[in-house]
């Protein structure tokens, strides 16, 4: 009776051990390296360049924030990495996404499925996008264990209860038998996080998971993810439009605009010394940082139509510092100081100091 689960545990321990030291890994290789990713949507109204040449990397255990407004391409970037972009109308036109050395885009479905949901997990704004309303929470939570780790059901349930306890669901052993609708919004978010973390992923992609939540619940969830991250060493990509959450939670930040990264750098630098006019304007429009009752700075105009070609800097038409040269040529992200990069040609040439 006792030998079978023990044997299973041994095998799993060996697997975990092997996984932690693949022969091919170079010491300095980032966990995820995305280069020149381009995802376009082919619609009746033309080709929408949702992600247009995005390159970045995520180190092991690191928390990377991606900020930008709706339509800036932050979610599509992550969906592309996960292979979740519906094709058609979407099409990944080019680029690479190396996860631990393997190009996610070149992998076939079975190989990709061994990574997705096990080594890379994803959580969403609306927990009901990842929870099945017809299934008991228990069956959904143990699914990744049954599929990816071939865990026996009884043990999987035990681990699922433990994971629910870890994310702070009270009375987990009983609540695990409930259906998703029986949980409140914050509790559902916890269930989704428990499900994402149950396989101890190396990378967690969080797509605005706290946007729909109240601030006190948001604080609980942020604390929870930070704790899980410390315990499991998971790297996190945190997608958000809330500059406040990112400031407290992420070590590094990418600012996206119109499908491109316009600025990237350590969080402290991004906030204290913005090096792109868009980032600066964005921060000036947040009420929290402004004098009470003062007129808030606004960004004139609207985000560009991504189905039209955008020569030069996509932000130029709305930029208070734009010069004639900003409307043409190629914008590239380059470092202005170590690890801090901007795509603003005028800042890079030293013409403009923000």
């Amino acid at each position, binding site marked *: 009776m006792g030998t079978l689960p023990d044997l299973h545990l041994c095998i799993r321990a060996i697997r975990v051990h092997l996984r932690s030291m693949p022969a091919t890994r170079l010491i300095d290789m980032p966990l995820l390296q995305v280069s020149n990713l381009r995802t376009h949507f082919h619609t009746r109204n033309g080709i929408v360049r949702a992600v247009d040449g995005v390159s970045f990397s995520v180190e092991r255990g690191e928390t990377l924030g991606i900020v930008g407004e709706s339509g800036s391409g932050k979610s599509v970037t992550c969906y592309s990495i996960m292979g979740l972009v519906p094709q058609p109308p979407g099409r990944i036109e080019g680029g690479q996404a190396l996860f631990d050395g393997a190009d996610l885009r070149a992998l076939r479905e079975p190989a990709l499925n061994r990574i997705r949901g096990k080594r890379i997990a994803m959580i969403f704004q609306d927990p009901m996008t990842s929870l099945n309303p017809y299934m008991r929470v228990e069956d959904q939570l143990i699914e990744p264990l049954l599929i990816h780790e071939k865990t026996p059901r009884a043990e999987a349930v035990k681990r699922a209860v433990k994971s629910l306890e870890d994310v702070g669901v009270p009375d987990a052993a009983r609540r695990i038998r409930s259906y998703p609708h029986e949980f409140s919004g914050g*509790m559902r978010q916890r269930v989704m996080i428990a499900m994402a973390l149950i396989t101890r992923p190396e990378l967690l992609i969080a797509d605005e998971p706290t946007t729909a939540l109240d601030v*006190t*619940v*948001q*604080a609980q969830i942020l604390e929870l993810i930070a704790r899980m991250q410390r315990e499991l060493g998971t790297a996190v990509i945190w997608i958000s439009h809330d500059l406040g*959450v990112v400031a407290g939670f992420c070590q590094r930040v990418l600012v996206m605009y119109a499908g491109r990264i316009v600025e990237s750098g350590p*969080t402290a630098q991004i*906030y204290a010394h913005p090096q792109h006019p868009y980032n600066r304007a964005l921060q000036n429009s*947040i009420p929290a940082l402004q004098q009470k009752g003062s007129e808030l700075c*606004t960004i004139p105009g609207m985000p560009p139509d991504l189905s039209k070609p955008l020569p030069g800097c996509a932000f130029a038409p709305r930029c208070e510092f734009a010069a004639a040269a900003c409307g043409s040529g190629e914008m590239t992200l380059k470092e202005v100081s170590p690890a801090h990069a901007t795509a603003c040609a005028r800042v890079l040439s030293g013409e403009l100091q923000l």
Partner: protein
Amino acid sequence: MTGSFLELRDLKTHFPVERGLVLRRRIGTVRAVDGVSLALAKGEILGLVGESGCGKSTLGRTILQLIPPTEGTVVLAGRNLSELDRVRLREARADFQMIFQDPYASLNPRMTVFDALAEAIQAHRKVSAADLPELVSALMEKVGLAPRFIRKYPHEFSGGQRQRIAIARALAVEPKLLVADEPVSALDVSIQAQIINLLAKLSREMQLTMIFISHDLSVVKHISDRIAVMYLGRIVELGPAAEVFERPLHPYTRALVSAVPIPDPEREKLRQRILLPGDPPSPMNPPSGCAFHPRCRYAKPECAKQVPTLDTFAGRHAAACIRLGEIV
């Protein structure tokens, strides 16, 4: 308070919870708003904050008589709105208007800007058709929309522009009181700033009294003169905006303020968050006494026994907590 422009006296809105298709039995009551008293001066902006389900939207709607109050009165400029009959109430509606969160849902997709605004103008005034285009254009300019868009349909506008149309529609009848229910929550940060500036400007220029409902404390702090914090149907704290934000009194407000993320990594690092245990309780079955006591770190047995009243603590700053003197 005398001379107040809007006064709420012990306002209650309860919803029956029924079960059964044919034989409906009442199985409970949701006390969405449970005894709110407030007085607003003319031209004042009151921020109403609280988490989902605390009753802030229901309170807004009850003030505007969109939901009849179960008990209590709403007095606007000396007139008791809850006593008016249907005809009089309709006439009175020119004085108070509402703006909703979702500018995609609050505009009729088959009406052009002109149709939408002309309808609103004509709802309470006799205006000749010849004068309408000019009035509509003036209204559009007031909210920062170019009059050349007058023949466009809602789908041709962005979210921010649609919210401007919704604001113009509310202003068409020249109201004195505006209830804005999460007017910027659906908008992007840069657009949000435009709408906040617009509402602040309009309130100044038109002496508009405003109730600004939002769950975003930093937005509310920016625009409001005073802030009221709601928890489970009651106001637990009321005071000048900056004071409520910087020196919160009620333990719930303290947790709420500490949970608001600040977009400044340096300050964020030094902050101490007060994490509240559990979820807000159901308004159908609220805890006895102070509704916050099961989640409160200062709670004592007495807190479960009596409902605390909103008492003035210092100046114009009030909170509903029996232990206020000990914990501040």
